[in-house]
């Protein structure tokens, strides 16, 4: 069974949208509340490597793409979540699952103001201490 079939099989109804931009670039949309379960399945059960996450401000809400790499086939599986509430955006942290996510969640938190629930060390990573609270450099508005 190919890795894509296995992902489809394991995540089943959690997948809201499946888009293959190219053979090695796959985008999956899921509900934000499923992120811990999906990340755990991909990282722990299917042994994908967490590459990084991209946070961005879109007209429909704040979006996070969690990029996972399957190095045997060179495929990147990007898991997309859309947090519609821009006033108090929050999502469960995946840092308790694996430490590699710690820095990028801190970065998204300070750049876009998304709160990561359950993050063990949510403090500034890149911005200076004097940077004003509540100002998020990557927000478009």
């Amino acid at each position: 069974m190919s890795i894509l079939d296995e992902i489809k099989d394991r995540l089943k109804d959690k997948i809201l949208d499946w888009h293959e931009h190219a053979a090695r670039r796959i985008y999956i949309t899921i509900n934000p509340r499923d992120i811990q379960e999906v990340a755990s399945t991909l990282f722990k059960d299917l042994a994908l490597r967490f590459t990084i996450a991209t946070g961005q401000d879109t007209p429909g809400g704040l979006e996070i793409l969690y990029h996972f790499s399957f190095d045997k086939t060179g495929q990147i599986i990007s898991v997309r979540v859309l947090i519609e509430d821009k006033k108090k955006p929050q999502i469960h942290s995946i840092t308790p699952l694996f430490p590699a996510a710690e820095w990028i969640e801190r970065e998204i938190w300070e750049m876009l103001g998304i709160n990561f629930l359950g993050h063990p060390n949510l403090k500034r990573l890149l911005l200076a201490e004097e940077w004003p609270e509540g100002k998020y450099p990557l927000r478009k508005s």
Partner: protein
Amino acid sequence: MSHKVVIPIGPYHPLQEEPELFRLYVEGEKVVDIDIVIGYMHRGIEELSEHKHFDQVAFLVERICGICSTSHPFAYVNAMEDLAKIQVPERALYIRTIIAEMERIHSHLLWLGLAGHFIGYNTVWMWAWKYREPVLDMFEMISGNRNHYAMMKVGGVRRDIKDQDIPVLKKAIDELVPAVDMFRGAVMDDPVIKARLKGIGILTKQQAIDWCVVGPTARASGINIDVRRDDPYGVYDRVTWNVILEKDGDIFAKTKVRILELYESVSIIRQCLDKMPKGEIDANIKDIPPGEGIGRVEAPRGECFHYVRSDGTNRPVRHKIRAPSFMNVASNKVAAVGGTISDAAITLAAVDPCYCCTERLIVLDKDSYRKLMNGWDLIKLSQAKTEELKKSISSRQSQI
């Protein structure tokens, strides 16, 4: 009496390209915890990129790093070509690969020199940097610049490699091989270096998986990954070469991986120069459609990752950049803890971050903040350990 002190390493030093602060918590000689503070060099390039034309972004991201300066534009053009599904002329792909491998050679030699300096082998330092010079000269010959070659362009490369330059390039590459042989002999067969680097700063395979490290740092811990082979770009799938893999995860393994990779880079460049076809070097891309693309490059330090989203205008709406050190530096949290202070400088440098921060070390008393040692003292401490090992090894040999 137990004496708990905090050692801040960094953040500023005139030599380093990216300042960072490692706050080491030590008990006696032993490092018990480490706090890594980054952000001193945050220039907001991701945000800046949203205000630049797609063509200008290649120049912008080239300035992220002064050492692996072609990795970022390379990953960026890969992302753009994935986004717009652009077919790049064959000759341009060969030229890109040659530039990327030359960069790996000069970057690994740079690291080797600094690693030598940290453990008190200043001859290794001087030699490594001496042999790095011809590589920079070759860059100057091809692009006019020793660093920031500005070769990458969405859809191709900006400059061709002239026919008359190819024999000169080949000669320079061939002359590197005896130098690499010498380093391999000097580093791998030297009992003192072995004793100094073996078994310290270990990153186990499981830790490497959990911290998602990349590049030589991962390969030295037995993680078999290399973007060049796994997700081929350029012409890496058209030349033969090997991924260098080690198991031990210590500094010696990381050194070995980098030295052996030099041979592979030389071989890749030779094959590319032989096989490079004639023809166009640019696909002349004018418009970028809406969409998103991901580009990856195996930079000298590991996987460099770029994500670009376009809305059909001439500027990206989002450009995410992840340099390999972002993952590798974080893993120092496990690699340096449990070791001694005399090993800290080389352990932190072993992931090949922006090394020079390790040159500015200060040991402070935790309660009074009284200065106990400065950076130079710590490098001397590291070098003194090597001296002791040298003496004990030579006295053992003389007894035999």
